[in-house]
């Protein structure tokens, strides 16, 4: 690396000495002006929770969780009454709603999802590339386990999403790392603490061109969210490596929670219709007006992946499934 850097520097210097550069800016003068002033109105800080999820509590309060900068420790939680201004982090343990002190995991706290059953809040999450579930009496945590453990799966598993189906069963959609990131489903036990491995079935893997624009040998489909509306199951999922600018969200449909799944030929959310890179890995929720929204992340900028920014866009159901509602995309900001 040192040699390569030196060689590049030497080449650049030699070239600039020999080239008589035609585009140089030597005539702009040597005196330097102060850097332009920052605007007088302080800019709001954008939230940087990747793989976000928004849980809407029964009182209409929105809670946001995600893969944050403290992903080696646990999860923050943010709260909003109107989805515009977010307070936090408001987790009961120093801003955290879950840490490795009280729940499974020592690193890699990723992609949580919160559901409520009765008076108990369940957080399904990834840590150490395994899936675990913890409970709390408040959406702000602390989410804890009586015994720190993960849900048993053969091999590595990440990105849990639990569907409470209309037939009374619970399905854990998740990603198994097997020759790519592949989305699986398995029926959960009644206590939501485990899965019936004999029911596990692969749902989808990367097969379409838009799902693997880099033609990587390790294809990626991940971040599932499943809705059961009417007779149709809708699976929202993300594809491509998360660092790829083409990271995008597609929708697949089925008539059974186990599939077979028919994919949309093109992504529903991507850089082309959002205007930013690396869009994906989010969750569906309904806002106070009953409209569907998808919370997700984008790359930090056109040149930097991290820290990923948290955003929301409205989705409208149509004959093809779902489409982005024009003019609804916005980032989420701290109050």
């Amino acid at each position, binding site marked *: 690396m040192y040699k390569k850097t030196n060689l590049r520097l030497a080449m*650049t210097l030699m070239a600039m000495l*020999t080239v008589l550069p035609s*585009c*140089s800016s030597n005539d702009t*003068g040597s*005196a330097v002006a102060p*850097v332009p002033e920052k605007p007088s109105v302080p800019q709001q800080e954008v939230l940087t929770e990747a793989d976000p999820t928004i849980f809407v509590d029964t009182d209409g309060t929105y809670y946001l969780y995600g893969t944050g900068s403290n992903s080696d420790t646990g999860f923050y939680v943010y709260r909003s009454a109107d989805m515009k201004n977010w307070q936090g982090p408001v987790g009961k343990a120093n801003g955290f709603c879950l840490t490795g002190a009280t729940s499974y995991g020592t690193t890699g706290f990723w992609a949580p999802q919160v559901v409520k059953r009765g008076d108990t809040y369940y957080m399904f999450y990834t840590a150490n590339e395994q899936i675990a579930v913890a409970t709390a009496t408040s959406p702000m945590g602390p989410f804890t386990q009586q015994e720190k453990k993960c849900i048993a799966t053969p091999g590595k598993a990440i990105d849990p999403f639990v569907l409470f189906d209309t037939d009374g069963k619970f399905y854990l959609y998740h990603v198994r790392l097997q020759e790519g990131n592949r989305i699986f489903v398995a029926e959960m036990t009644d206590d939501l603490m485990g899965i019936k491995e004999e029911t596990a079935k692969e749902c989808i893997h990367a097969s379409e061109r838009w799902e693997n624009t880099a033609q990587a040998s390790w294809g990626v489909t991940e971040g599932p969210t499943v809705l059961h509306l009417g007779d149709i199951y809708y699976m929202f999922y993300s594809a491509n490596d998360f660092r790829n600018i083409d990271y995008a969200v597609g929708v697949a449909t089925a008539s059974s929670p186990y599939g077979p799944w028919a994919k949309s030929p093109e992504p529903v959310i991507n850089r082309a219709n959002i205007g930013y890179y690396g869009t994906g890995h989010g969750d569906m929720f309904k806002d106070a007006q009953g409209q569907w929204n998808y919370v997700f992340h984008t790359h930090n900028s056109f*040149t930097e992946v991290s820290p990923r920014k948290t955003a929301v866009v409205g989705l409208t159901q149509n004959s093809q499934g779902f489409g982005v509602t024009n003019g609804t995309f916005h980032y989420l900001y701290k109050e």
Partner: protein
Amino acid sequence: MFNKTFLLTVFAALTMNASAINIQTQISIKQPGNEAKVIQLQADGNQLKSADGKTLPLHISAQLANDGNDQVYTVTIKADATTYYNFGAQLATGIKSADSEFYLPGFWYHRNLRSPKEAPAFHTSKSWNFREDRLSSPMTSVYDEANGKSVAVIRQLDTPQECMTTHQAGEIILSGETSLGYLGLDCEQQEAKLTFGYPYIETPKRYIRKLTLAAPVFAFAKIEKGETKTIQWRISQTEAKDFGEHVTLMWQRCFDNLKPQALKPLFTPEEMKKGLTNYFRQSYVSNYPLKYNSGHTLLTSDCKPFPEAQVGFCGRVLLNAFNAIEYGEQHGEQDLVTMGNEILESYLQHGFTSAGYFYDNVNFTRGFPSDDKVVHSIRQQSEGVYAILLYLKYEKAHGRRHPQWEARIKGILDGFLKLQKADGSFARKYHDNGTDVDGTGGSTPSSTSALVMGYRYFGKKQYLEAARRTVDYLEQNIISKSDYFSSTLDANCEDKEAAIAAVTATYYLAAVTKGKERQRYIDLCEKAAYFALSWYYMWDVPFAQGQMLGDLGLKTRGWSNVSVENNHIDVFVFELPHIVNWLGQQKGNLRFLQMHDVIFNSLSQLMPTPERLCGIAVPGFYPEVVQHTTWDYGMNGKGFYNNLFAPGWTIASLWEMYSPTRTDDFLKK
């Protein structure tokens, strides 16, 4: 050593007049390991024999045949023994050296006296010989200012061949075949001569990179015993009322002789634009107050961004930003729209000096220049205005207004009204307070399109009046003198961009005027167009195997030399092709229509794609400094590029060519 002092003891033929030709010839023969011997030849019927009566190992014959109004001079060399030779000739033109001006297309105009002594010009020598691939047409020509006469020698092309050489200077025996000869001029004596020969020599110096003359070269070709080699040149004479008409007529001669045909393009315009959008994405820089696509001083080997933003010139940040917005919206690629808008917004916030001009250049390792030290060029300011007016018109058409931008652009154009001098010119460079840094007026025509567009957009007649005055200056000082100089910001010599600026300026005025006034601009446009087109290759130079451009199959027809100081080719075209096409239709000029197609179809040849990167690290970063002759900025010479390049303007130039209705859409609707 090759002796260039010729003994004029015998004339080869009749003296120069309308129907007779006077050519002196010599043959140099090199025994490997010995210095070459120069033998003067004299005619014996059709045979050329040694003037001193010695027997040569070669039988050389020369025939002159009429071909219409021209003569074709055919030299045939047959070897009695394997010989290493160089054949040279001088055509005595009958024109006084004192009255002579020369035109070697794309390389020599007048006497090149605007160039410094470090470039080929009369400053250094009144006798020069150049290898043919330096020239956009293989022709040398002289114009007699006193009597309005033109004489030219045009090499008739052989099957293209080229070989590598063991060394670059002195006497070299070629390792294989070359089809390249040489063409030149000689004004050392009272009578001007046009020189030519085969294979190539370059004397008194080779011009190997910008402002760098090096030791001469004399190439020797091998001819095996019993083999025959035939070489032909066309000699053409006519009359012209001035140097400008000489260039026009000679350009037509070359065109009719070379008959350039349009290639089948590698990519369609849509495919090109799609590929070029990768440059928008991969070059984007957002960590400084000004956001921009990094457009210059990039290494071809990695294309990593450089911390400097230029409004126009090489960087073309604003025009590229608009192109990204327009393309993104048309093709449903919102990320490009966001990116382009981020760039423009950053310039709106941070891109202006106290006086309201764009920062032409900002180097972010040095910081923004203070207003008392900043230097503006009329060219970059105009290019910035051009880009933003395109953007504003586009936005207006989509129901979006930007009053802040409008105020800024009006501010700059109102500033132009104050900067313009009494003769209609603009200083090439000026301080933020408007005082001159470089008062020469050669960049004046770059302001015309901005002023005309400002007139169209804002309806302010003073802008049109100022534009008219720029073309009055242009006509008087540039077009009428056929002296297209000083449009680039790093040189002050005859250059292609100056001619293109003149073509564009006159076109813009023709687009917004009527009647006789319009016709005047059309006529000036056509005159300037011949000059502009004189830089564009009508033939394909040969490459040796191993010279990457040749291995890629590059055909140089349609590409163009940069200036008399910069002898490499590039894709600088911008609006020229559609204007040439329009002129072709206006004036029934079929050559222009054909030449448009030649240029249009040729410039996609080096488009870097993932499968065929053409020597560039990243797809879509279109190459710039294409070395098609003995030219070396320090990286591999002929057949390669300079290791630094400026894709900012190459992408912008091609984009304009592939958007041929843009100008008319702005001006006429």
